[in-house]
């Protein structure tokens, strides 16, 4: 509950954040930065949960818990993704998206 800041502003921000994430996902050339964009999306969601929880339903903490779990899962996800990307780098000596276009049609 931040005084003077209505839920709408925050939600607008998070929504922007989410779509920036998507935009980044679709446009980045580098796998790592794509990963970062994914993180952006997830964080947007996490913030969403907290805010909705605090502003609309302050009597329970479901949203907060949820955001905690999101953060944890996101961490795991990132770790896994990074390891796979490293493995890919070992094989393709590149972390560009181009390196992942051998299978198509």
């Amino acid at each position, binding site marked *: 509950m931040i005084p003077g800041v209505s839920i709408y502003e925050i939600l607008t921000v998070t929504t922007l954040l989410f779509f920036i994430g998507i935009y980044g996902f679709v446009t980045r050339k580098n796998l790592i930065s794509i990963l970062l964009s994914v993180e952006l999306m997830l964080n947007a969601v996490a913030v969403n949960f907290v805010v909705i929880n605090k502003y609309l339903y302050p009597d329970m903490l479901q949203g907060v818990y949820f955001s905690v779990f999101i953060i944890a899962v996101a961490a795991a996800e990132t770790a896994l993704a990074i390891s796979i990307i490293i493995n890919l780098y070992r094989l393709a000596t590149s972390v560009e998206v181009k390196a992942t276009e*051998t299978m198509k049609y």
Partner: protein
Amino acid sequence: MDFTYTILIPLIPLAVFLILGINALKIKENVAGIVGVGGLLASTILSFYTAFQYFFKVGKVDGVYQTFVEKTVWMNFTDTLAIDMGVLIDPISVMMLVVVSTISLMVHLYSRGYMHGDQGFTRFFAYLSLFSFSMYGLVLATNLFQIYIFWELVGVSSFLLIGYYYTKPSAVAASKKAFIVTRFADFGFLMGVLMIGYYTGTFDFMALNNPAALQDLSSPIMQYSGITFMGFSVITTALVLIFAGGAGKSAMFPLHIWLPDAMEGPTPVSALIHAATMVVAGVYLVARLFPMFYFVEDGIALQVVAYVGGFSSLFAALIALTQHDIKRILAFSTMSQIGYMMMALGISGYGGVEGLGFTASMFHLFTHAMFKALLFLGAGSVIHAVHSNVLQEMGGLRKYLPITHITFLIAALAIAGVPPFAGFFSKDEILAAAYESNRLLFWVEWTVAGLTAFYMFRLYFGIFWGKERVYKHTPHESPLSMTLPLMFLAIVSAVAGFVPFSQFVSPDLAGYTTHIHMNIAAMSVGVGVLGIAIAWIMYKKETDIADKISSAFGFLYKWTYNKFYFDEIYLFVTREIIFKRIAQPFAWFDKKIVDGTMNLIGNSTVDISKKIKGAQSGKVQDYAFAFVSGVVIMVMVFIYFMN
């Protein structure tokens, strides 16, 4: 009186056919001959016994010949409509039995000599028996459908016999032609039968040929006669269609084209099928339904019969003048004589002396069968001797083939209508009948009588007199097995005329007495003798008159020689129109359009999948984009529908 045994008359030849047919390859020639002839002899005896019993034992009951029917259901169409199988014994069927048996027996005997040494001997006799079976069945038929069934069967046996020399392309073509043309006619016949069946509710002759019912428009068989088709009562239409079937079998104009080609068959076959018996089936059919033809709508259908018959006889006679193949000449003369019979039926009345035409027609059928069979068998004997059937390659054969010569002469005189031979009486009656009822047709037939006499004697002189030809090996008289039938038939054709035919056969089954009509007889004999005389002048000695005349009437000659180009017209219709213009486009349409569309559906599916493969680009970001846009589209669609 019980005539059930007559069922054996057809069944015996059937049995023979099955025996010979199933092991055609095993049975030896002489065995086959004996079995075949024996079987037919039995049927013949039965037929004559039947005739004797029918006409003399039973005779007339209160002045009318009885009709005996033995039948059993063969197949049910509906509760009321069914096909029966059975035998119908009345004057004309008995008369036909006699004719068929006699000729068939003679031909069987003759064939034993004529076909001697042919490797298909057994097959030939099997076919002959099949034909005899079918013909008997046709003659004895109790209803339209039965007659149609055996009608088809005689057609197929004729097909088999014409194509007997199946390695000869011309024979194959002829047999095909014969079958298909008659089949085409049978299409009409069948339609007629269907119409009769539907509108009168029965196929049975006894029910159909009931004059009282036919004249009373409320009777069950005439109840629908009010319905008209192209201005005629449906019944009339049906009768005309049925006559079309008959015309096909009897080679009436314009369905006659198959008959000359049919001469490709062995000569005995031509004698049996294409001269004496099968080709007159059409006449028999009309005679069978004569009451219907006569009473329905005052015999409009009968008019058709008369004119078609009359025209055909003239048409055929003209063609016969110029042909060179002796069998074809005989074939055309057959056609013309059948035209006579049709015409006679056509102009006949019903009761008493009125029915002279009917009687005459049947009488002529009877006598004609005898002498025309004789002519063919004689011709066969000639061909057997000189191994050719072209007139130009013959001449002066009378001293080589004395018996054949005499018998042939008798037959020729008979057909030319010279008294006291059989032809004279029947032809005289026909002309008399025509004179009474239709002058135009009378004069036509009178001319035809002259023409007949002329071309017959052209043939006769051409073969047996004229200039001596050089033959590869000198011709010799045929064996007894062949000449015996000739002599027998010669005697018959000489005396058959004295049978008091009208006593036995008349439309109303009552019978009556006829006398020679002197003036008409004089006219017909006169024109006949005239024809003979001209032939004598032109062909007795080797002269060039014939060529002069033929060149004088150049194009007329060419026309008649080419049978008025009828074959060509038919060829054009079948080859050019039906095959090229109809069937071929159909085949194309099927291959390209119908099948094409089916394949198109399949191929286009595959093509689409080729086209869209790019979507699976392998770029994870494209996938993401697709994912997001998928969501967006869903949302937009939802918004569109909700608001």
